[in-house]
């Protein structure tokens, strides 16, 4: 799409059908793999460290450093595993969906380069069960790859479908699930790099992270690091959804202003409405008011506003949206997806939803608003994994930034917006958010 600021991960998707191996090779595909294999594993890792690439799944951990934590085979004789987190389930994020559906070979190339860097011969791709389209694409791309031992080498790649649990996007819950157990997070330490899959050294990377790796090898880490802004180098595929004219995935150079994201790439708010709020990085991030969007879309800029790029799901909300209803929507999601292992998340998210529903119904008394914040506070920082904590942080931010609106629900003994609040398509179903008709077929 012409308005994309920079294409690295999704380069060539409009001109070619990159799901085909031949087409991908015709634009230089898999040459980075050849180049990487001629390098030592350490040299590949060093290149990625030089690129300042940080994980695209949401935690933003430096990728090269993560790889460097993996013990060398002589330090730990167990098999080393590369596990790809393709369990993209964050409300508002649908970028990995499109990456897998449109550039599966670039993704696999990145996987094979990473496997070389961490000296692994076993790759597991844990893909969200609902992603049937991308799954089919990956499987047929893999079938093509299987016919090319020169490319695949001695590495086995297994694509494993999840069974519909958001928590399995948390890396240790993902590993548990992959081992055939109940998908619940483990305590850390030990970290996966030391004791991951089957208690062996394991690197868990996001789809987009790995799909970026071929370009880094191709360009050189230093060259890649010229893109973006300090702390947020390179590009990011951003999913824009909600009340915008042109929802979809856009690859941008990190640091682009959020106003440009919403009003430029996204085409602005439909029907002449005004922007009330933006969720900047998927449902688990702190909300921004409509007047807070003159900020760069990068780690440091957003941190100053106490929020984050997360998994790059930008959700725009127009002036008709009720923030209490948004709270219910988000809290219900986390309550539903809580794995049930730790107490604050399991019990707290349910209690949050109950209080929010009462606020929405107009039956709440003043103290319950404070109770809601206190419950959030009592969840935050007490949980085993980030699921419950982010639910609490997100909902608390709605109260923080729109307190008057919550107060109005109590004062007016009811919701000022009622049924006119158009949250039914926010966050919208994935099918609304493919950036091209070709990708839409897969979802």
């Amino acid at each position, binding site marked *: 799409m012409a308005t994309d600021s920079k294409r690295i991960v999704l380069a060539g998707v409009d001109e070619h059908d990159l799901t085909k191996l031949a087409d991908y090779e015709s634009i230089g595909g898999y040459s980075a793999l050849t180049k990487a294999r001629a390098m030592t594993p350490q040299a590949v890792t060093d290149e990625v460290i030089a690129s300042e690439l940080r994980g695209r799944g949401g935690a933003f951990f430096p990728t090269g450093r993560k790889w460097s934590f993996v013990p060398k085979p002589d330090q730990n004789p167990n098999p080393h595993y590369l596990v790809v987190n393709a369990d993209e389930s964050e409300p508002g994020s649908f970028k990995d969906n499109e990456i897998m559906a449109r550039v599966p070979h670039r993704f696999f190339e990145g996987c094979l380069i990473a496997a070389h860097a961490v000296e692994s011969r076993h790759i597991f791709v844990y893909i969200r069960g609902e992603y049937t389209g991308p799954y089919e694409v990956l499987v047929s791309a893999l079938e093509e790859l299987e016919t090319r031992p020169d490319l695949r080498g001695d590495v086995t790649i297994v694509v494993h479908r999840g069974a519909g*649990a958001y928590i399995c996007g948390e890396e240790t819950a993902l590993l548990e699930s992959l081992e055939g157990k*109940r998908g619940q997070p483990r*305590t850390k330490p030990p970290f996966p790099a030391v004791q991951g899959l089957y208690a062996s050294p394991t690197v868990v990377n996001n789809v987009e992270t790995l799909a970026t790796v071929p370009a880094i090898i191709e360009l050189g880490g230093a060259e890649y690091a010229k893109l973006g802004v300090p702390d947020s180098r390179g590009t990011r595929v951003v999913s824009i959804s909600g009340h915008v004219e042109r929802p979809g995935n856009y690859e941008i150079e990190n640091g682009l202003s959020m106003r440009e994201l919403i009003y430029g790439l996204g085409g602005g708010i439909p029907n002449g409405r005004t922007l009330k709020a933006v969720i900047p990085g998927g449902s688990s991030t702190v909300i921004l008011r409509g007047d807070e969007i003159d900020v760069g879309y990068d780690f440091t800029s957003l941190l100053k506003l106490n929020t984050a790029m997360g998994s790059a799901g930008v959700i725009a909300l127009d002036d008709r949206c009720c923030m209490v209803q948004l709270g219910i929507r988000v809290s219900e999601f986390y*309550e*539903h*997806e*809580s*794995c*049930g*292992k*730790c*107490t*604050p*998340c*399991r*019990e*707290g*998210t*349910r*209690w949050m939803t*109950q209080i929010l529903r*009462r606020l929405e119904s107009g039956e709440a008394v003043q103290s319950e608003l404070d*109770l809601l914040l206190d419950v959030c506070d*009592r*969840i935050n*920082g*007490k*949980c*085993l994994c980030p699921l419950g904590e982010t639910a609490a942080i997100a909902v608390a931010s709605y109260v923080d930034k729109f307190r008057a609106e919550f107060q109005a629900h109590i004062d007016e003994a009811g919701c000022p917006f009622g049924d006119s609040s158009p949250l039914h398509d926010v966050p919208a179903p994935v099918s609304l958010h493919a950036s091209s008709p070709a990708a839409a077929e897969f979802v």
Partner: protein
Amino acid sequence: MSTPETVTLTIDGVSVEVPRGTGLVEAALAAGIEIPVFCYEPRLGAPVGACRMCLCQVEPGPPKPQAACTLTAQDGMVVRTALTSPVAAEAQNATLEFILVNHPLDCPVCDKGGECPLQDLTFRYGPGNTRMTFPKRTFEKPIPVSPLIALDRERCILCYRCTRFSEVVAEDGQLVAVNRGAGSMIATFDDEPYRAPFSGNVVELCPVGALTSTTYRFEARPWEIQDVPTVCGMCPVGCNVNATTREGKVKRILSRNHPEVDDGWLCDKGRFAYGHLHAQDRLRDPLLRVRRRGFEEVSWERALDEAERLLREAAGRIVTALSGSETVEQAYALAKLLRQGLDAHAAVFCEEISDALDAFRVPLSAIRDADLVAVLGDAPVVERAPIVDLWIKDARRRGARVLHELDEGAVQSADRAILVWCGPGGHGGATVAALAQRLGAAGAFYLPETANGRGVCDAWAAAADVEPTNPEPTNPEPIGLLIVSGDEAAANPDVRALAEQAERVLVVSMFHGVAAGWADLVLPGTSYLERDGTYVNLEGRVQRLRRAVIPPAPDELAWLSKLAERFGVEIQPYPSAVFEEVSGIAFGGIPFGEIGERTPLPAATTEPAAAAVEAPPPAAAADGGLRLVRYRALFSGPAVERIPELQFQRPRPEIELAEADARSRSIRGGDEITIRSNGTSVRLRARLSRELRAGVLRVPEEYAGDLQPTVEIQT
């Protein structure tokens, strides 16, 4: 202050030095400080950090409170618990508030009330009021997890102790968590009953009243009960237990963790079989056979007269059949009366006992630290000495190789090999002792069938005042009087056969029916829960039994003492006095008072094992048939038969065969197959076992019929 082996850290301002690798919960305990926990239980494997009760401030570390149970003590660590840290206090208070949000708070009618960690920790760390104004989450309840266990899902706080026990310790994998988030609940697959030999442990692990035993539900309040520390008498392990009593009745059995013997686990037989004390057919008065009228209850005075008469009339032609469940003191008293008073030395023991193993004596917990465990003898360990099976599983989880047949090279090259003999042909341990000697094993066990076979044997030998001229006294012909001591002996077919030859039979038995029809005089027996005295377990450890409840009839020592008087033999009616007498001869003179609640194991002897004993039997029978190993199932026997709640645990009509034998005959698991020998046959369901050697079949005694040791599978 730290050394290579220790670290020093500060907890609530208290400096404490602990061994490297110590968990924070234990390190705090060493400093005299409580870090409260629900899910943490070191015996259940790696900590899971689920309940968040143990949140503390820990430096160095992230600013938010940390789950102390998942951390190990490090040098220079500064830990602040709720005692000194407002952050930790707030976090722990929050955890309890969340736990109680949906907890029913039905403490007044909850069996756990009064001995409930949730109550205790709420009292110390929790909120005093509730801010929850919504309807609480409800579940159907109680759910019968099995005939033994009831589940209240509303009380459950999802600490996952029970499911971790099932998965990680017992490895039965039957108890699981289903659903997600606030809807998570404990369940069995497809609501099948939790049928496994160690299921009852989950009741004791549960920190709330979610898992309760059906036999204890609504039976007592914690402030009206008394716990009596004693030892289980159901198998040769001798698990340390507390018998909970109320108004003179045993109400439940709890573990009294002996870390070298049982690690705090009990099998369901040991936990639930106490109901036999109240069996409907329990004998309370002596029974005398009366012509034409069968049996008649008689007074003790009359019974003793009759017993005296039987003993005198036999004129020394007496044989005594022992159960192996008598206490050392009972066996000694009986032996002293017979051997010293009547010169009647002939005895039939339930099984062969050898002291050859004393040179390889190690505690059962040594199995856990082994790098190789060879289980020999072909009978199933869990059916004979259940806790040993848990020790072996623990060893395997820690990386030990577990073999089910003898690989001499592997045993020789192992650093810490342990041999376990379970099955026929073990010669009371002499075979495995000889093997251990030859192969250089670090330890060896023989699993007897009886709870105190070793102690009974030693006591019987100790009572011989003179060395008998014939070291193996043979049975007199004909037998004038057969004395059958205890229900296990009475149920033994070999003893029954002897009874048919004997002119007179005197039986000591707990239950009507056992001796009916073939005894001349039946004296009421007592249970291990009604006795004071000592047992010697399979390690060779002398353990103390304490009387939990008064038996319905005078105990054996009381009437033996009176009877012995009539023959001029002095027997004190007090176990302490009798033990001191035996101890001087058989147990190195240890005083009764020193056999405490955590009895230490006597050191291994340095004498070499007995001379070489024949090699273990080959798997396949010589003529190409299959070797049949029949065993007494754990859930069988006179006590189990009398507990309705345990009936679902009785063995299924199955025969175990090795996978190779099944494959070569195209038999699949679950197929009905016919086993035959010498014209007799049984038809049973096949179960394939990976633990069985090829050429061996295994079947519970009750389904083995008249099958001979060598059988064929009819195809």
